[in-house]
């Protein structure tokens, strides 16, 4: 396992680097609180990395900082070696809440993300069609978000975040609001999409099984103030599928390992 991690790091280049990052909130009344303390992590190119941890550990805050939507108190976040400066089309984002534009159809929602791409109409049409097919929404091009189920809406959101070919994808509990069955189908879909596209992904979730199924590596965070508690390489073979992978003995071992770490932190947070 250690050997494998070493080779990964040698052959792959860092896409996203979080270097000694702090996040301090200063409430109107009272003392400043550290949400994140001296946190560092790396996501390599074409790697799927998950961030798990007890609720309130600051994992979503970190993701928002990487997206450039939340100021960094101290430290640096680099993408391809350049320090980030606000949000940009190099990082696609998928939120837990529905962020589709209700007045636009499915295809126009996806096309909206190409507004600043400078591409011609025909190229845009091609990309939109490709991405609708990628998330399996053929036949719903002209539907409005309100006519779609929760899972379908998140598929549109994923297509929309991928269509402008960002350097990487930041996903903040994208399936958190879905019911168990839809969630399972969405995990399978994301697995397929990722195996086809190999986009670099930083994925925040509180679902340990989801993280193991999808990821190459997992960072486990401590309870607030959030730091990295452990880094676990997921040495399950690819291509994976939900049924095959989750019945693997190794899956159960990893699950136990990650859950133990999170439980420790969750207990600490409760005290």
């Amino acid at each position, binding site marked *: 396992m250690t050997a494998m991690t070493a080779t990964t790091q040698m052959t792959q280049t860092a896409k996203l680097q979080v270097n000694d990052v702090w996040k301090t909130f200063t409430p109107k009344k009272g003392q400043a609180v550290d949400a994140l303390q001296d946190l560092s992590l790396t996501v390599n190119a074409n790697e799927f990395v998950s961030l798990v941890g007890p609720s309130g550990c600051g994992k979503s805050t970190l993701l928002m900082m990487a*997206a450039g939507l939340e100021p960094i108190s101290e430290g640096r976040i680099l993408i391809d070696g350049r320090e980030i400066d*606000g*949000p940009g*089309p190099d990082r696609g*984002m998928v*939120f837990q809440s529905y*962020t589709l534009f*209700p007045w636009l159809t499915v295809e126009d929602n996806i096309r909206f993300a190409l507004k*600043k791409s400078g591409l011609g109409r025909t190229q845009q049409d091609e990309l939109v069609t490709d991405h609708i097919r990628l998330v399996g929404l053929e036949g719903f091009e002209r539907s409005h978000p309100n006519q779609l189920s929760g899972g379908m809406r998140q598929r549109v959101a994923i297509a929309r975040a991928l269509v*402008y070919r960002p350097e990487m994808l930041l996903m903040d509990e994208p399936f958190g609001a879905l019911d168990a069955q839809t969630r399972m189908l969405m995990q399978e879909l994301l697995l397929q999409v990722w195996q086809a596209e190999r986009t670099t992904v930083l994925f925040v979730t509180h679902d340990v099984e989801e993280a193991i199924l999808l990821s190459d590596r997992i960072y486990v965070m401590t309870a607030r103030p959030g730091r990295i508690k452990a880094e676990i390489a997921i040495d399950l073979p690819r291509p994976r599928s939900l049924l095959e992978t989750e019945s693997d003995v190794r899956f159960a071992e990893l699950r136990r390992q990650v859950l133990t770490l999170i439980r420790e932190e969750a207990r600490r947070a409760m005290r």
Partner: protein
Amino acid sequence: MTTTPRRPRTRLFELRGDIPRRVYAGAGVAFIALFLAAWLLLTELQVVSPIFLPPLRAVGEELIIQAQEGILWQDVGASVYRITVGWLLATALALPIGILMGNFRFFEGLFEPFVDLVRYMPAVAFVPLTILWLGVGDTQKFAIIFIGTFFQEVLMIMDNVKNVPRDMIQVSYTFGMSKWEILWHVVLRAALPGIWDTFRITIGWAWTYLVVAELVAANVGLGYRIMRAQRFLETDKIILGILVIGVLGLLTDYFFKATYNRLFPWMQETR
């Protein structure tokens, strides 16, 4: 042993239960009919003196007389004109200011204390002042309708803008859009249905301020007609004026509801 299939029975009084459309619409018509019947009964049997409540017949006759003499059309014309101009002035100012207040904390801080102060001041109390400032012409009527609606409308539009989900704005930043582009293409677009509803509600208030506006120094208009009839205890004229205002108010409300459905069909499918 045979089981008779039980016919599904519509219950009228289930908590939030649905009822047939026929029943729903019929009940509304029946209630108005009942109201008129009670009126007819009370007046025709001379239970109440015509000075307190004129017979329905008298109001009808008054309507025919005023329509034939042209007084009604003059009054309606003058009042609709005052309301339209007064409300348009209020809206023309409330729209940009409300949008600024909803988007930029600076403008919220700048305007809100003042708006909050003025909106608790009774519009009626401004009648003598507006006459002093603006004379007795239509401008003074516009001013009263403006004072009555603007200060509420501006806050409602601010809220409409603030109700646009934050994530919707943030995801737009990740497409590489500038804040002005987001303001135009996302925030305003998303706030529009709410703003349209604010229009519907505030124009309703404009109707209620009409009588106040035509209270003094008017010689035509529905409100003026009511105030004049008061002097001679012509209750039939008073009631006719009130009914006409009611019907016109209903029509404007219907206009905004109908255009809402035409303009924002994607809002209807919600639920």
